[in-house]
């Protein structure tokens, strides 16, 4: 045997090629390429003593413990077995080429000379994954337990969801703790669904979507978890939690109803014992944005600014009052009001009310008084009062262009302040009247 140093390509020739090869010669050339490749060989020139069944001189090719052919002959000769342009490909990384010659090369007493052969080989990628199901003789075990990925010169394995690749790089171990789902919708299933789930599982599936969304769960058929007629879920069970609140523990063959988690966080815990043959479960989860109830004014004076057809998480609305009305939150007067839709679909503040502005009791006028022009005793928005002085002893101080009725007229404004058209909040003054005795001295007697 003549091993050739491992290379990606090369040539193999008969001894002394292209001069005639010697008699009584036999050698086996071992062609090897790096692991992950296989050998492809093609003859470029072939001139070996032809014989029936290639009994005398021949070239024999074998690989993977199989004989790929025995060849002899000359170009143009019908005798023998020429390899022609045939490509010989090994399944493994090794190919054997045996060249055998007998004691003479004569034809009808004439000594003949044959040049021998020249062959080229090169390494071609071995698709290890393709041979997964029908293993080669050198590697009878399946290469990957779950998934196989070929690349030039090698391959690697991976596992289906819920499994982890073992240290050996081939086998897969069930691993379903800490499964996190953050997409707005998706499917979650027990391992191997709808084939029976593995034993001794402690699976934890967490669904986390953005705040302001709520999760809906819908189980698919088949739903099958080991059950017992009398005892509730003694073997295997699926527990569902929303925001740490238990939504139920499920087993048997009756799939759970569609669940509205009313939460953006759902956890599923799936426990199995060491035995069983149930097919497991699968669910489809979807998300829906949380909406807050449409804000409704509590009275006709409340104005919701730019109302929207619907309000969702983080939306807000602003409330104002019609002119002359005051925003009230309970007994507390507000300067402004806005409410924000929370992630649980509720408003952070309750709807305020709008109370008509009250200017309060009008200020008393020294040496005068006031009377209501509008409803007596009512001091609300648009109410009017008329101040007057105690005549004839006092007279209202007015401007030349004004009158007592104008100066004394006060209206309750939208700001809740009594105001005069000309002088604003300043109430009039009653000035003493001089020199006007009610009973002046008089003499009748003349």
């Amino acid at each position, binding site marked *: 045997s003549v091993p050739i140093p491992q290379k990606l390509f090369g040539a193999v020739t008969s001894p002394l090629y292209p001069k005639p090869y010697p008699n009584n010669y036999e050698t086996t050339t071992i062609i090897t390429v790096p692991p992950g490749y296989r050998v492809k060989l093609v003859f470029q020139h072939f001139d070996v003593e032809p014989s029936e069944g290639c009994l005398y001189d021949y070239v024999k090719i074998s690989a993977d413990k199989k004989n790929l052919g025995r060849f002899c002959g000359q170009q143009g000769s019908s005798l023998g077995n020429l390899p022609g342009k045939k490509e010989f490909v090994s399944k493994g990384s090794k190919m054997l080429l045996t060249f055998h010659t007998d004691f003479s090369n004569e034809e009808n007493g004439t000594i003949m000379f044959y040049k021998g052969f020249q062959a080229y080989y090169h390494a071609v990628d071995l698709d290890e994954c393709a041979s997964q199901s029908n293993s080669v003789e050198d590697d009878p075990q399946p290469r990957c337990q779950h998934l196989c990925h070929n690349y030039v010169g090698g391959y690697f394995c991976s596992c289906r969801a819920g499994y982890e690749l073992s240290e050996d790089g081939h086998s897969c171990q069930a691993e379903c703790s800490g499964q996190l789902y953050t997409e707005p919708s998706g499917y979650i299933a027990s391992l191997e669904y709808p084939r029976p789930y593995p034993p001794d599982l402690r699976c934890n599936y967490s669904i986390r979507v953005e705040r302001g969304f709520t999760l809906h769960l819908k189980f698919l058929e088949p739903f099958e978890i080991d059950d017992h007629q009398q005892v509730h879920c003694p073997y295997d069970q699926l527990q569902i939690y929303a925001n740490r609140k238990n939504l139920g523990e499920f087993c048997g063959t009756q799939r759970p109803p569609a669940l509205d988690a009313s939460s953006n966080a759902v956890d599923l815990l799936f426990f199995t014992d060491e035995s069983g043959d149930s097919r497991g479960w699968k669910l489809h989860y979807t998300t829906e944005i949380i909406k807050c109830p449409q804000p409704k004014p509590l009275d006709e004076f409340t104005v919701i600014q730019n109302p929207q057809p619907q309000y969702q998480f983080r939306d807000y609305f602003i409330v104002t009052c019609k002119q002359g009305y005051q925003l009230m939150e309970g007994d507390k007067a507000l300067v402004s009001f806005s409410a924000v839709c929370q992630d649980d679909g509720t408003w952070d503040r309750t709807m305020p009310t709008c109370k008509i502005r009250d200017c309060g009791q009008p200020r008393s006028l020294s040496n005068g008084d006031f009377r209501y022009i509008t409803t007596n005793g009512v001091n609300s928005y648009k109410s009017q009062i008329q101040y007057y002085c105690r005549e004839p*002893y*006092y007279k209202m101080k007015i401007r030349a262009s004004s009158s007592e009725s104008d100066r004394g007229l006060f209206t309750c404004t939208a700001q809740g302040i009594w105001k005069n058209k000309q002088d604003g909040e300043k109430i009039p003054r009653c000035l003493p*009247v*001089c*020199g006007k*005795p009610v*009973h*002046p001295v008089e003499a009748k007697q003349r």
Partner: protein
Amino acid sequence: IIGGHRAKMGNFPWQVYTELPGPGGGALLGDRWILTAAHTVYPKEQTGQGSNHTRNVLMGHTVMKQLRELTNHPIRTIRIHPDYHQDQPHNFDGDIALLELKNSVTLGPNVLPICLPDNETFYEERLMGYVSGFGLTEDRLPDSLRYIRVPVAEREACEKWLQSKNRDDVFSRNMFCAGGLHLKQDACQGDSGGVFVMKDHNKDRWVATGIVSWGIGCGYGYGFYTKLLNYVDWIKKEMGEE
């Protein structure tokens, strides 16, 4: 008041009775100020009139007994005209003062302010004016407010009368005189500070034109009054906006 009449309620609603501490008169200006004569506060020849004396300011009734039952009006400040000289017994120039009350009084039919003059026509001779007061009637104090009606006298006549008496008393341009030699109606001690008023028929109101100031005896000759028109600016300055 000599030779006068008993006043009825409401005849002289501006009349104020003062004891500062001596008895005197005054007139209500606005609802917080009393016009009076400076010498009712600081009488001549009585230097050292202290501020710790009880001072009474009463108004609202013509009967003294009733008047004394009414509320006293405490004084906040006293404003004496700077021309008044307590130490000059023969000179009553600048005999005018203002009493600022602590609280405003409530005006009514018996308590009303008097107006101030605005022109010289109020001082024309023979114009009749009224003088009221709780001062002496002959030689006794009256039990109620009394009044007289006297004319503004001719200035020269008053000056001559004073000269004939060989008096040193000053009759300044800030004074006017009223009454007459043969008129038995006059103001007297206790009426000082009260006002000489007359009806302004054009404006249908009563105007104080003078303050009872001084005289020689009571009931004969002329009475001398502080001429208010000359002090209107000072009064307005002291009273401010009021």
